[in-house]
């Protein structure tokens, strides 16, 4: 296989993102939890666009829905759209400095969760209020540390 170099590392980090979702937080402070799943996905799309793409985003979204208990496919579409945007712009986004990149991630987060909230409205599942934006900002702030950790991880295990 052409892409057999340490695939496990990618799936392992994505699984870690899902597992972090499981940590129970008090009901009212859940919206402060950074969206690690999306962040880790965005990192891999940006770093290895030839290996991680829309299909990964789809399965990740399904996993997220299964954990949340929301109707299946709800989180997938937002993640997939954001992934498509990333895939068509990854060369540009890689050149951005830290602040610009975080901002870009924030925009992608707003895009993907905006689509999700819109779908929720469509199928009568309660949507997040505007306070949900706090979570997205927190996520964007977490982008740099996540990128640093995953970059080290990727180089250490030579994921290509």
């Amino acid at each position: 296989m052409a892409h057999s170099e340490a695939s496990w590392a990618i799936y392992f980090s994505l699984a870690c993102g899902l597992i972090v979702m499981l940590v129970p937080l008090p009901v009212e402070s859940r919206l402060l939890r950074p969206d690690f799943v999306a962040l880790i996905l965005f990192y891999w799309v940006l770093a290895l666009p030839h290996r991680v793409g829309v299909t990964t985003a789809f399965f990740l979204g399904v996993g997220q829905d299964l954990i949340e208990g929301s109707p299946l496919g709800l989180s997938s579409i937002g993640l997939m759209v954001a992934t498509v945007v990333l895939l068509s712009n990854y060369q540009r986004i890689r050149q951005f400095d830290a602040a610009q990149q975080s901002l870009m991630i924030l925009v992608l987060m707003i895009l993907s969760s905006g689509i999700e909230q819109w779908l929720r409205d469509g199928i009568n599942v309660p949507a997040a209020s505007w306070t949900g934006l706090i979570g997205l900002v927190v996520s964007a702030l977490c982008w740099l540390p996540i990128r640093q950790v995953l970059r080290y991880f990727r180089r250490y295990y030579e994921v290509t």
Partner: protein
Amino acid sequence: MLALLCLLALFLYRDHPRLTALQKGAVDVVAFATGIILAPADAWARTLSAMDSNSELREELLRLEQENRVLKGRTQRLAALLTENARYRALLNSARDIEEQLIAAKISAISPDPARHIVVIDKGVQDGVREGQPVLGEEGLMGQIILSGDFSSRAVLITDSAHALPIQVNRSGLRAIAEGSGALDRLLIRHLPISADIRVGDLLVTSGLGGRFPSGYPVARVTEVIKPGGAAFAMVTAIPTSALDHGRFVLVLQSTAQSEGES
């Protein structure tokens, strides 16, 4: 292609038995995995409690014994009242009281979705938990089961903004619907006429209409009644009697004659 699949799953096949089966399996997995994640914290709590001094434990035991005695005393009266009530019902020729059984369960996970109030409890189909059964806290109604896997199930709390339940004002018998607000300490009672007999401090109990929740369980206490001049409806908010974000132990109510209530 995949996006189409998602849309299909969302809009057409949301209740497809295979998808539901997948979700039921996922509940079990989520509960199990959360258990593993929480294992160190639980072990730490156990170690701490193992180090409680003897005298503290004895004190605790004494307190619990006292509480138990008080509760037993109350149940004695309850038994008498129940038989009395049954006699009256027989006289009135009305339906017999539904017998209820309780299943003790523990909250094992909380859904990470901040827009919903959904918890996972550690009892499932194997223990007799079914969809639609009410979940009780120490002080009153907490929610109901929406999905039951084999070993654990998912319950929605009464404050979830997609949840509503039929209630009754304990003092006046006024019936209404209490909707979840999405905030843990607020239930909304809408569409009550301005002249409705409802006051701050009133206890709201389940009315039993609809057959989902048996009647008479405390739900909430009215905190605010706004009757704007000229408006048709009063705006009433209430706070749930059971602390929804405290404690890990809940009871699932299993009524043996539920089909009777639902018909």
